[in-house]
């Protein structure tokens, strides 16, 4: 008990070094959770569920995957024994009220993202911020990677972007520091995966889709985008089409 108080007292903005407090996996068997559930009143449980829903919605603003450790430390706290039940209910609420899906992206690392289950309607953007433009850049990169065989060298990516008037060294009027956006932000959000190619000097990197990209869109969707841009049918690119069909 005192341990938890200490971590709370040290401020909510503490970096995630509270992990050691919650390193014990809270995934208890369902029967155990059901028994624990009886120890709390329905109102209390509902309260926690609402808090978790709010927390997830706000945390998702930056599109950085949400860690289970954060959820435990900042929301669940002493209700750890019914963690899985709270998460399930929160997921249901998100689905029923907001049409959002809580996806556990990595079952080892236990990180969550929110995706939408309803298609976007036209003219929805009330907030004029950068998110839409950044999504365009991301889509361009993802489609380039996919059409070129799912793994591309960094040199090829940046050469392609140059054709779209994006210079990695210069400040872009829409994106600012593009290099940082692509290599840091997109990677942190798990849209892209950039890994160094071994035995290269100067070091080269390969760009691939990140797990979030696979969850929020699909190869088929990306192929459709490319096809639309080029005014062709998706089946025009036979091998990519076949690959897209068989993936998921």
């Amino acid at each position, binding site marked *: 008990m005192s341990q938890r108080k200490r971590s709370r007292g040290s401020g909510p903005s503490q970096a995630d070094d509270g992990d050691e407090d919650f390193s014990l996996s809270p995934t208890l068997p369902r029967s155990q959770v059901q028994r624990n559930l009886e120890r709390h009143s329905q109102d209390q449980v509902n*309260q926690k569920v609402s808090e978790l829903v709010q927390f997830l919605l706000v945390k*998702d603003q930056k599109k950085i995957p949400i860690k289970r450790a954060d959820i435990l430390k900042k929301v669940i706290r002493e209700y750890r024994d019914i963690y899985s039940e709270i998460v399930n209910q929160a997921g249901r609420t998100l689905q029923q009220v*907001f049409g959002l899906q809580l996806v556990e992206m990595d079952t080892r690392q236990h990180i969550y993202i929110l*995706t939408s289950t309803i298609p976007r309607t036209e003219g929805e953007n009330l907030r004029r911020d950068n998110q839409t433009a950044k999504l365009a850049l991301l889509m361009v990169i993802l489609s380039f990677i996919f059409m070129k065989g799912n793994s591309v060298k960094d040199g090829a990516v940046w050469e392609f972007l140059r*054709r779209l008037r994006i210079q990695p060294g210069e400040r872009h009027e829409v994106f600012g520091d593009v290099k940082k956006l692509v290599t840091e932000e997109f990677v942190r959000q798990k849209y892209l995966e950039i890994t160094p190619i071994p035995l290269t000097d100067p070091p080269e990197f390969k760009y691939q889709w990140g797990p979030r990209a696979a969850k929020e*869109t699909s190869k088929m969707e990306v192929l459709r985008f490319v096809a639309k841009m080029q005014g062709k049918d998706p089946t025009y690119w036979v091998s990519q089409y076949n690959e897209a069909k068989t993936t998921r």
Partner: protein
Amino acid sequence: MSGSSSSDGVTSSSGNSRSERGRASLPSTSRNGAVPQRRLQELSPGSADRDMEETGAEDEQQQRLEGGEGDEQSRRIIRNQYRELIYSVQQNREDMLSSKSNRLTEALEEANKLFSGVSSAREAALDAQFLVLASNLGKEKANELHCEMTTFDSLVFAEDLLTFMGINRIEAEENDNDSESISGYLPSDAWHKLGEETEKYFRRAPSFHYMLGSFKSDPPVPRQRIERQKKTTGTEEKRAMPAQLKKMEESHQEATEKEVERILGLLQTHFQNDPSTPISFFDLVIDPNSFARTVENIFHVSFIIRDGFARIKLDDDKLPIIEPSEDNEEREDGHSAGARNQVVLSLNYKDWKEIVETFEITEPMISPPYHSNEDEMETD
């Protein structure tokens, strides 16, 4: 070079055939290892303690050198053949790249055959050159396997994207070969426009933002919000009355007083008309159309009672009634014996509804303030 072989001269003849056999059985892939080894032999004659194969080759070379003209001729032929092979591979690159063609394999086999006649560095170097060429071609063929039918042309894709984004191609001349040329002008909402199209292909959860809040989305914020919400939901009920009233008091101090006076006037008028009949408290304050107005009325009436202009009593049915009082003594002296009482009245929405039904109140006795000029019995 010639001196070292003397000790091995005995074995030379038998070694010859053995080494030939040995060479023939080597697969083409291991040639890379064999060639430098042979070259090493030629360069370092002192290392005579190799296996039979090596020494046999050296001897054979010896024999060849001793052979003279004929051997030089055959070597030249081999070199020519290699150069031809290399040339043909280079010229027929596209054909070799085609997945249907076996020509690369055929060329490799031919080179393998040629290699069996190779014994000196020059030819071996040509063989190595051919190998580099063939392996590069092989790698390209492997890459082609990825996008077998239609290769993706990223240049065209880039141009299509720019077109979609609404590029203004001002310059008429085209520098098509130089793809780096900046021709044309991208409008400022280019990327945004592309983004709107892109969103259709994504299942991205829209960002959740509070409309009235100016919060930055840092981790601490949700926590504070959660705590606050916990508190407010708990005390919402009791707070409703004072919260509203406080606001009124702060901003409309005088309005309150005016309101109280107005109600007092209402009351007194009523009492003048009918001095002996007290008014039911509920009849007075309850506004059947608005719970909020009811609460306001109770608030205003409480001032009247505090100031001693009226009294609340319980009648025979134990229901509260208001009756006028002589305010002279009570007002100045706040501590007259037994006269002052404090009461806390709680009324929630449900109760209010029940009272309206039970007492069959259809019209508010206290009219809403903005209609004060009209008939007091008017309803909204």
